[in-house]
């Protein structure tokens, strides 16, 4: 934005400040707290009591810190403070000092306040579908990443960990896979918009809201179509006394399970079957051979220490935390450690003017293991790690060599990334008039990393070698982002009416750049020599690049409630994105919703069944920018298309237009409908929430295949295709407090994903090619990226059976028989069919908890049902690899198996078929947490408020039929390649011991 425009903004703010000074009433301010917990109450209403009663009394609601300030008409006012679920309190207001008002919980369950885009709302007033989670629900999961901690917790939110690499994130799908490209939700961390939540320490999280429907998410316009995850970090707890907390845990992790592979003897026997001769003569002498999984996995420690301090005085509230997290990976040579600090401060400079600042800074050291999971799976177990000379074994004896994973770990793991992350926001809030607040928020996110990769000279085999020692330095600045939001908030409650209006405008910019250099040939192998300057300067290489984008938006939302029963919300966002040409740059994203608190109608109240009951419905249009490419409408000239000429074989620079671009590209559009109800029974101890939704995504941006004769290197992006996601989000919770407390809760999310339309002239998308054959097929009427291939029909037992057909042509006894679906007597491409979907028919999670005296127990389960998984690592064969244990039962003349084909090494039995597809359903004990709190009578003597010790376990038990480590293989890049187990870093199971103290 140009400087003169910034000056204009500042000028406007100054004028607004002057404007409010003309008012001359007294200002009552204070804070509303829960009498029991001292927690601030967000959204409590504070209303001046006038005599005689006025239709328009002055009123406000408390902000997210429980603070309020109210301009009263009387100089000796009386105010009433009320909050759903709490007893009302009426008291005299004072303009001198901020008041501190303690509300006692009423017998009814307290009504929740939820954070929505650019504000907060009472849950009872909400007309949209929002899932909420408290920070303490996340802390049970041992992970440095908030995304992974969300798994299984909320209906309609499907989380799959990207991998077990320490520090890695997760792929999140809210209400299904909405598009053919980027289906990741938007993240909003204290107002800063980010692409993931990796920069937040889970223990700093106060609450998470997931905006699931159009009513809730449309305020995020062009980026709301995949849902929005709003993360609010802990703010200064409103205690007069500073509070300190200290907690720590220490744990031990192991790989979640091992894949059953053939041991040395069984491998030798299978290999003899493969070659049909006695290559291995004395099989018994071979023994178990090498367990390559044991060679790469280890038992590894995990540590976490958190210190926090928070408090407030009349003007300032603050919360400070610092955290040290250290996780050694279960795979050798992988680790993640992070030191982070956060300081959230809010200062009430004047009764009408608040300044705040949230900032977190983290330093991360990461070591990424080389890709050895797949090679450990493939290495024949007869091969030793080292040969007789003590060198790493060269596995080339078997033709095309697999890389020896132990050698890769030794030579390729000197790979260290140091990253710093600065994330925060600063804001000012001005009460302009009685009911009008202006807020300006500036958010920033800066990420910078340096990776050093040192690869020594080594030679294990002709394909596993490095002829020159090499140092590579990569400097990556993937985020240099800022956002500036100006919002004006009006809120007023009358006797029967409540009206809220939000208007705002925002501007944001995202930039990234990277730079890298390398040299080879270092004069020695001492650590201090591995800097670029000592390398051979004739081998130097460098590279670099940058990209940017910008977005400006206008936003508007209004909420209206009549008698707290009839609720209306409407919103509109207008986005302009730099990604599109000026003609297509502007998008309008409206939404409207209604709610009806039926429970407050006399005819329902008289039933005395429901403590609360609300119905709601919403409709809205959201967008998706969808692409990773920041300049999708511009045809870029591809470089590096070099040619070789001359007697000296010199490279001649070549460049040309390689791919077709589409300047007419527009936003993706998603039309979303939601109908839901919420009910509370048994004194609100039992709560049920059910939503039905329909997400219809139109104009999906997809790289649509064009005929190859066009000669484009890439398929151009066009607006095409339509995908439907339809399903239910159901959650049920019961809690009983008292001496013996217990609770249980569960959520289940059935979903149906269906492609409604594909590109013009393109009725099907084949992808995920394995051995040259597509393993997914996306067509109208089926789910995105459905598995595709031959259906097996047993095993050919003899030559006569093969001759009787149908067959492909080269089959031998013991080979898989495929179904001739078109009954034409031959097996060909037309006999391939739908083999199941990677999208679960439903996902679910449930929690059981209980407490008795000083003991507490909490158990979380999660699972999926109906999804399939493709064992890609088993289906890829280019040489002699190890086999999974089921191959020990392979067909032979003496063992006429009807399910396990003869031992082969590629070819017919490795065609893409359901032989490699397994049920991906699973049920996992995600966490189990058992705690003991020391009696207060002991701890109070040493001025400690509380000490709790706990032992917890993660992923200790899983039920699945699939042989792989886990059954979920997300792909954040392409929906056509999901569910393929190609050998990713598996997740760990772990046990932790720890304690929490407060003093």
């Amino acid at each position: 934005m140009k400087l003169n425009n910034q000056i204009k903004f500042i000028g406007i703010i100054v004028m607004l400040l002057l404007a409010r000074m003309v008012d001359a009433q007294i200002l009552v301010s204070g804070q509303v707290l829960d009498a029991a917990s001292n927690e601030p109450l967000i959204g409590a209403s504070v209303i001046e009591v006038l005599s005689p009663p006025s239709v328009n009394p002055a009123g406000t609601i408390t902000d997210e810190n429980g603070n309020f300030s109210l301009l009263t008409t009387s100089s000796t006012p009386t105010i009433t403070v009320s909050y759903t679920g709490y007893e009302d309190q009426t008291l005299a207001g004072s303009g001198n000092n901020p008041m501190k008002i303690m509300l006692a919980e009423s017998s009814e369950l307290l009504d929740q306040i939820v954070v929505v885009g650019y504000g907060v709302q009472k849950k009872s007033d909400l007309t949209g579908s929002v899932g909420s989670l408290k920070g303490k629900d996340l802390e049970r999961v041992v992970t440095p990443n908030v995304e992974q901690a969300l798994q299984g917790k909320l209906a309609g939110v499907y989380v799959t960990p990207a991998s077990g690499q320490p520090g890695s994130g997760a792929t999140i799908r809210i209400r299904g896979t909405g598009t053919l490209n980027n289906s990741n939700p938007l993240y909003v961390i204290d107002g800063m918009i980010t692409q993931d939540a990796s920069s937040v320490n889970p223990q700093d999280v106060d609450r998470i809201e997931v905006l699931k429907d159009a009513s809730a998410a449309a305020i995020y316009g062009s980026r709301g179509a995949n849902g929005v995850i709003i993360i609010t970090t802990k703010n200064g707890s409103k205690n007069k006394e500073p509070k300190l907390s200290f907690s720590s845990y220490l744990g031990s992790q192991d790989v979640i399970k091992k894949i059953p592979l053939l041991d040395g003897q069984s491998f030798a026997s299978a290999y003899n079957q493969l070659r049909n001769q006695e290559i291995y003569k004395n099989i018994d002498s071979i023994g178990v051979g090498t367990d390559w999984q044991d060679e790469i996995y280890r038992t590894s420690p995990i540590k976490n220490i958190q210190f926090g301090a928070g408090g407030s005085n009349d003007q300032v509230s603050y919360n400070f935390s610092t955290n040290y997290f250290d996780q050694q990976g279960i795979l050798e040579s992988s680790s993640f450690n992070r030191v982070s600090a956060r300081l959230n401060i809010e200062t009430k400079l004047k009764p009408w003017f608040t300044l705040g600042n949230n900032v977190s800074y983290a330093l991360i050291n990461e070591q990424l293991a080389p890709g050895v999971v797949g090679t450990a799976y493939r290495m024949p177990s007869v091969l030793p790690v080292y040969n007789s000379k003590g060198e790493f074994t060269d596995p080339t004896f078997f033709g095309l060599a697999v890389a020896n994973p132990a050698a890769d770990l030794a030579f390729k793991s000197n790979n260290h990334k140091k990253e710093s992350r600065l994330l925060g926001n600063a804001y000012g809030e001005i009460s302009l008039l009685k009911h009008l607040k202006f807020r300006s928020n500036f958010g920033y996110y800066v990420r910078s990393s340096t990776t050093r990769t040192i690869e020594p000279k080594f030679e294990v085999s002709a394909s596993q070698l490095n002829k020159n020692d090499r140092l590579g330095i990569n400097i990556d600045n993937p985020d240099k982002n800022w956002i500036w939001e100006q919002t004006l908030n009006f809120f007023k409650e009358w006797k029967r009416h409540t009206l809220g209006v939000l208007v705002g405008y925002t501007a944001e910019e995202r930039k990234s750049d990277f730079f890298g250099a390398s040299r080879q040939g270092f004069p020695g192998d001492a650590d201090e020599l591995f800097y670029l300057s000592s390398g051979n300067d004739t081998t130097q290489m460098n590279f670099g690049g940058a990209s940017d984008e910008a977005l400006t938006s206008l936003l508007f939302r209004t909420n209206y409630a009549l008698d707290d029963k009839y609720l209306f919300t409407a919103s509109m966002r207008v986005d302009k994105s730099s990604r599109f040409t000026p003609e297509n740059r502007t998008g309008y994203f409206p939404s409207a919703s209604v709610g009806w608190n039926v429970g407050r109608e006399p005819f329902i109240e008289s039933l005395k069944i429901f403590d609360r009951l609300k119905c709601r419905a919403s409709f809205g249009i959201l967008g998706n920018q969808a692409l990773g490419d920041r300049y999708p409408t511009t045809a870029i000239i591809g470089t590096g298309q070099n040619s070789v000429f001359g007697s000296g074989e010199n490279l001649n620079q070549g460049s040309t237009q390689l791919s077709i671009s589409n300047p007419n590209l527009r936003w993706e559009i998603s039309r979303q409908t939601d109908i839901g109800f919420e009910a509370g029974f048994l004194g609100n101890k039992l709560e049920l929430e059910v939503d039905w939704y329909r997400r219809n995504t139109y104009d999906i941006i997809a790289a649509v295949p064009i005929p190859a004769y066009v000669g484009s290197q890439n398929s151009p992006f066009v607006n095409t295709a339509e995908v439907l996601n339809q399903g239910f989000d159901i959650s049920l919770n019961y809690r009983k407090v008292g001496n013996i407390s217990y609770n249980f809760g569960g959520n289940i999310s059935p979903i149906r994903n269906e492609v409604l339309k594909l590109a013009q002239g393109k009725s099907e998308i084949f992808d995920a090619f394995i051995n040259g054959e597509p393993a997914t097929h996306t067509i109208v009427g089926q789910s995105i990226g459905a598995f595709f291939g031959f259906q097996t029909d047993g095993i050919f037992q003899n030559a006569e059976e093969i001759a009787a057909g149908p067959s492909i042509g080269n089959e031998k006894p013991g080979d898989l028989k495929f179904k001739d679906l078109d009954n034409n007597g031959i097996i060909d491409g037309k006999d391939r069919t739908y083999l199941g979907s990677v999208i679960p028919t439903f996902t679910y999670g449930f929690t059981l908890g209980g407490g008795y005296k000083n003991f507490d127990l909490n158990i979380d389960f999660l699972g999926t049902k109906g999804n399939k998984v493709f064992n890609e690592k088993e289906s890829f064969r280019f040489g002699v690899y190890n086999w999974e244990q089921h191959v020990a039962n392979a067909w032979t003349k003496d063992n006429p198996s009807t399910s396990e084909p003869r031992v082969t090494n590629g070819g017919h039995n490795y065609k893409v078929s359901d032989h490699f597809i397994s049920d991906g359903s699973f049920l996992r004990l995600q966490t189990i947490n058992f705690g003991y709190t020391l009696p207060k009578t002991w701890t109070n003597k040493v001025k400690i408020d509380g000490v709790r010790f706990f032992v917890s376990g993660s992923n200790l038990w899983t039920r699945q039929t699939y042989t792989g480590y886990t059954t979920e293989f997300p792909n954040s890049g392409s929906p056509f390649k999901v569910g393929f187990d190609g050998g990713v870093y598996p997740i760990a199971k772990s046990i932790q011991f720890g304690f929490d103290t407060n003093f």
Partner: protein
Amino acid sequence: MKNILKLFIVIPLVFTSCSEDFLDRKPKGNLTADTFFQNEDHAISAVNAIYSNFRSWEYCGLPFIGATDIISDDADKGSTETDAFYLAQVDNFLFDPTNETFSTIWNGHYRTIARSNIAINKIPAIEMSEVLKARLLGEAKFLRAFNYLRLVQWFGEVPLITSQLTDDQFFTQKRESKQNIYIQIEKDLQDAISGLPEKSKYPATDLGRVTKGAAKGILMKLYMLQGKYTNALTIGEEIVNSGEYSLMPNYQNIFSRLGENGSESMFEIGAVALQASIAGSGATPYNMVQGVRGVPNLGWGFNRPSDDLIKSYEAGDPRRQATIIYVGEVLPDGATIVQDNPEILNERFNQKAWVPNHPGLQDNGPGNIRLLRYADVLLLCAEAANEINNNQKALEYVNMTRKRARGTNTFILKDLTITNQTELRAAIRKERRSELAMEQQRWFDLQRWGILKDAMIAAGKNFVANKHELLPIPQTEIDLSAGNLQQNQGY
């Protein structure tokens, strides 16, 4: 209050007016289609990019070897029994139009054509030296013609695209008659002949760019394909008489580093293995896919010279040994002996694609890909002369390659003296096979001679007449064309 509200109306307007500048973002560090083709450097660069695609997997990788040598009687699939199953189907004529061999080569060749089209369309408007402009256009037109000649021989009628297609044309192309494709190829080659310099006129740093001689050589091939033998012989003799080319004395050296852009080279694609741990920017997969699999581990071991090929050599022809690597053989670099790989039965490898150990891994292939040799032109001269009953001339030409092959050994490959046209035709064809074996020529020759069926059946393949003479149009193209492209007969 009213004034404040006014301000909030004004602010969005301010915001909108500045936002267009704020939102105007250009790709960083890249030329775009709008800023390219402004000067001479851009023109050269765009032409270089055409050559570059000849080194891509889609152009010269395994599918290409499959659709040339492996499909012919020169070679079997090779490698382990089950690796690259789709090529086993090609080898035995068990393929259907979904086989990736066909989509891959189709892709590679049309991409090269698209790059040529961009250069041919854009270069004329650039202000630059007219001589250089004519040369660059000549290069681009030659390269386009070369690709269409291959496509028309493989697939028959194909879409003839000579401009940059716009989005409304993407799905509407139809197959063009062979006759019209031939006309376009001839026109492009005539333009190339007039715009291109002879090989000797290029500076040493540009050695390897296409030449007048290369364009004449490919035009000669076109005439042979059309049965225009007189025209073919005329242009062939123009090449012979230009004095630009001569046979290398040692046959084996043609395919070594020595032979790269040597006296016999008329058109080849330069490749170089720069220091790299992965495929360098000048490398090809051509050597890797055909390299020895096992010990020494130089590649994937595809394209196994067939028994039929071995039998076809005259007794003692040293070209057999120079074409095939056997187990136990000492490789030309003298350093290594090929060992038996238990995973492959009777392995043999294509020596013409052999390169000594190179920096980095196997994919860093440094061997230039020979696409037109002088010996090829001489044998075509012999063939053309024989077809127009000039048997003396035919013998003169055919004996040139035999002479070179026998070297100083006068007991083998004696000069041919046959005068009967039919017998001489057979002898020339046999000589052509021995001279050009495993150089991806055989399939096209058999097709041109109209004897594919006999040769394939003799080699024991499941060849179906009136079907397999042409490869199938890739199924993906048929599917995408919404009825505009029809499949070849029999598929």
